[in-house]
């Protein structure tokens, strides 16, 4: 972090992968000084004149490459503006901010990763470091709206090779879809687990996180072993602007990853 935490770092776009119609992954080479970050953390990504938006790291720089990645859906002022950028252009980053996934807790456990839609993006760095987690078993349960909106499609084969049990579902199947059809909660329900030896990281729409967590609770997984990453409006990323406040928390600096009991009971959320 710089002395003035509002000053952004430049990052050169080294490549862009189109994931779906409106989702692209930007491969970014930041100027020196930007800390690499950890799985579950986010950067404020933007461009002067347009503004900044909080975007999760979908790849954390690791040995062999300094590139980081952000997977962005063009839906708002900032993200729509960025969707016009091409390889070689520069964007601006501040961060990384927040508390990421408690990856150390996966050691010796069955790590259950549950994601919905773009929620797979902040889960992806956990998968990428899976060989370092010393988890007994890793399962990824991923749901999307339809086959065309599944992101990181080309990577599932590689993840399976690493020993990760990848299970997919879509709400609206079609065109040769060979996996489960239905909500992600259904494939959570089918999962065989030993509740005391399970830790779960969930990211997706809030209602999906709620019901996926409920399925785990029905299997007697303790609340404190279930982690979620809620989305909130953010302007600063540092607990100053106040927009992301939820109960006593600043989602940006106390989260975005929370254990389920930390969020339970506060109004204006589904947890």
């Amino acid at each position, binding site marked *: 972090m710089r*002395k003035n935490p509002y*000053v952004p770092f430049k990052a050169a776009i080294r490549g862009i992968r189109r994931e779906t119609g409106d989702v692209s992954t930007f491969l970014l080479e930041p100027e020196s000084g930007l800390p690499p970050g950890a799985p579950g953390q986010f950067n404020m990504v933007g461009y002067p*004149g347009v503004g900044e938006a909080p975007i999760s790291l979908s790849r954390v720089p690791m040995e062999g490459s300094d590139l980081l990645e952000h997977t962005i859906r063009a839906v708002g002022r900032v993200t729509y503006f960025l969707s016009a950028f091409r390889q070689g252009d520069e964007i*601006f980053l501040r961060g990384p901010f927040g508390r990421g996934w408690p990856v150390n807790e996966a050691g010796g456990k069955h790590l259950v990763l549950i994601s919905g839609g773009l929620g797979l993006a902040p889960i992806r760095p956990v998968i990428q470091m899976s060989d370092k987690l010393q988890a007994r078993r890793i399962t990824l349960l991923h749901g999307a709206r339809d086959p065309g909106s599944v992101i990181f499609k080309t990577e599932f084969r590689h993840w399976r090779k690493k020993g990760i049990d990848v299970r997919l579902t879509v709400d609206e199947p079609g065109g040769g879809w060979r996996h489960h059809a239905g909500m992600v909660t259904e494939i959570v329900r089918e999962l065989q687990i030993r509740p005391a030896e399970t830790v779960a990281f969930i990211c997706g729409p809030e209602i999906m996180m709620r019901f996926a967590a409920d399925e785990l609770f029905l299997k007697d997984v303790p609340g404190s072993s279930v982690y979620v990453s809620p989305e909130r409006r953010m302007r600063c990323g540092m607990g*100053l602007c106040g927009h992301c406040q939820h109960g006593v928390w600043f989602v940006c600096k106390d989260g975005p990853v929370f254990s389920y009991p930390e969020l339970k*009971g506060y109004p204006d959320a589904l947890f």
Partner: protein
Amino acid sequence: MNGENTSQKNYEILISRQQLASWVEGLRENFQLIGPVGVKDEAEFREVFSFDEINPGYRSTMLPPGKTFLLKPEEEILSFDITPEGPVAKEPPLPHQKRVLFGVHACDTHAILYLDKVFLGAFPDPLYRARRENTLIISLNCRAVTEFCFCHLVGAGPFLKAQSGYDVLLTDMDGEFLVELKSERARKLFRIEGRPPEEKDWKRKEEMELELLKSFSKDFRADGLREVFLSRPDHPALRETAEGRCLSCANCVMVCPTCFCHDIYDETRVSRTGIKRMRRWDACQDYSFARVHGGNFRQERQARLRQFVFHKLDYEGQFGVKGTVGCGRCIRWCPTGIDLTEIAKEMMK
């Protein structure tokens, strides 16, 4: 504290109003002097040129002194020059104006300590920090309260008990002023000969506060709100107030001395040669405050009013202190007279 501690003696002194006036006016040599001007609860903190302009008996102001002068309503936090190589970030110059905030009541002093927790925490805000360091805070114990005040119920007044984080504490002792020096720089700046306070003076100060405590009209129990708040977030007291009276005008937030929320937005110069990144006070009462793509976490007016009430009266876990200092401004300046203490009372019934 009773003044018997010898090491403290030199830091506590009784002086005349005239001595105080000439000391404060003397500060103008190096500081811009800001003080309360006007009467009752409609005074205003602004620059003054002589002590006579200040009304030490003022009861309240619409805008709180701390937030107004330390976190300006709107300011540039960064700018970008547009160059052939792309935008280049430029930090704004740090504010260097030395300032005295004179006559800050206990509630408003506590509010500044609260803002410190926000803006001088893990990510210190450079502009806030510079202003904070350049500002001498001379606090003043209240001699009268408004019908809206409830500092006594939340541990923020009416007499200031905090021992640090500000510079001087004054108490108007009917003709004399008790001066308590609370910072090293205050001890350096204050070189007035006076009378050391005696036991009877401290006793008199205590009696004055006890007397003042009798004049408050607000009354609610601040403890135990937590369970009620979280178990009944849709309590009729909240719902009916929100739906029947709240205009979402955000007056409550704007006048609140602890409300720190702000928006950050970019302004491009018409000539397209530069961009300013601005911040401006924002309010949880605004419809779009908690909106994200695909949803709004506080779409209903009730949810927005609840956020204000809960943040002020509960959610102590956030900074270890309540979000309210009991100044009563949100009640005084609500166009429909919404009173968070009444909502709390209804919910506790």
